[in-house]
């Protein structure tokens, strides 16, 4: 496996960023995103000149049960509710140094998702950011040509959101298949 990119120097250089240990990703405030990205790309130590994957992740309001040892050293589960948020994840690689992925995240809220577009830094983000805009509804400031890419332009709603409900299927036709689907929905919930 190409060796992993060390993230400590970034944390020192840009105090605004912090390291999300559980996901192994560098969380970057959207204000400094373009500056950090350009520095990562042009700096000789990193030279992360290849942004392989850009995608969005939608986190709903959920409460997580964690086993923590409280004061008496006993294991007990504490329920912690996590606020809803929307992530845009970038996987950065270096083709010159052939070094491994640096996961680079921008966080924003779910109601008005607004994130800095990194297309000026890496051209490979252009179509993928359009896809995140189309399927998640995240608005990319500074994107040269932000349009829907997979859905048709008059489509409302963003299908990949967790709380997306399907519109009425006006092209529905009676098929034996849909009896089976109804019977599925009625009794058994797919585990």
């Amino acid at each position, binding site marked *: 496996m190409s060796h992993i990119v060390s993230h400590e120097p970034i944390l020192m250089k840009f105090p605004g960023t912090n390291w999300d240990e559980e996901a192994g990703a560098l969380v970057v405030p959207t204000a400094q995103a373009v500056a950090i990205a350009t520095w990562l790309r042009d700096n000789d130590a990193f030279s992360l000149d290849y942004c392989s994957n850009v995608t969005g992740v939608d986190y709903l309001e959920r409460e997580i049960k964690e086993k923590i040892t409280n004061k008496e050293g006993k294991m007990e589960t504490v329920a912690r509710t996590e606020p809803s948020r929307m992530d845009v994840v970038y996987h950065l690689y270096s083709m010159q140094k052939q070094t491994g992925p640096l996961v680079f995240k921008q966080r924003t809220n779910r109601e008005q998702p607004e994130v800095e577009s990194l297309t000026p830094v890496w051209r490979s983000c252009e179509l993928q950011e359009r896809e995140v805009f189309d399927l998640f509804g995240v608005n990319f400031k500074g994107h040269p040509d932000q349009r829907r890419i997979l859905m048709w332009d008059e489509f409302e709603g963003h299908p990949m959101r967790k709380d997306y409900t399907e519109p009425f299927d006006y092209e529905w036709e*009676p*098929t*034996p*298949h849909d*009896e*089976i*689907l109804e*019977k*599925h929905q009625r009794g*058994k919930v*797919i*585990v």
Partner: protein
Amino acid sequence: MSILGGGVFKGMVVTLRNFVGSYFYKDRLTTNDYSWRPNDKLPQRAGDYPKEEGEQLRDTTTVTNYSRNFPMLLHDGGEPMDTVRCVACQICERECPPQCIYIEKSTEKKENASGKPQFYPATFDIDVSVCMSCQICVEVCPFDAIVMNSQFELSTPNRFGGLLLRRDDLLKSNDYYHRIHPEEAAARDQRIADEKAAKQAKKMAAAEAAKNKAEEKARAEAEANKDTADAEKDAE
């Protein structure tokens, strides 16, 4: 090539060689000629089979004995419903990616091949127009009740009900399975036989363990009453 148009001539030599070759080497022609006898029409409707169930009229060289198309339910010969293997546990219905299987469990139990009363599927529909022959149901089935058939001529003029195969269309005998997929069927039967043998051996081992435990207990009691008997003798 230095001479003008040399590359073009080399290319034309290749096509000439292929043109001549296709008359001599038969393996160059990949398009195999399906049977052209008009009355040898491909069997169109699912129920449109000769008595030999599931047999395809055409030479099955075009369908190798590894290809999989749509699932079928297995029964161990004789009257299909008496020896059906499926116990309607509905794991395959839950795991099926396009959700094209629908099972309704029977209310009362019935004897199955090995004599144990067992549930059986009252209805077992597979919507063949939705099934994508991915063989996930065969993998997740713990009872080897569902396997893949290689029958692909299922086109029917009736658009709605025609492609919904009911339980009776799906039921096929185990030796039909041996006929279309010899290797896989043999391997599967071998595995079932091994498991049964292993279970048998385990049961016998458990039985022996239980038996000799019982003997020891009996022997221990025997000694115990012997001791008590000696003790009473000493006491007198």
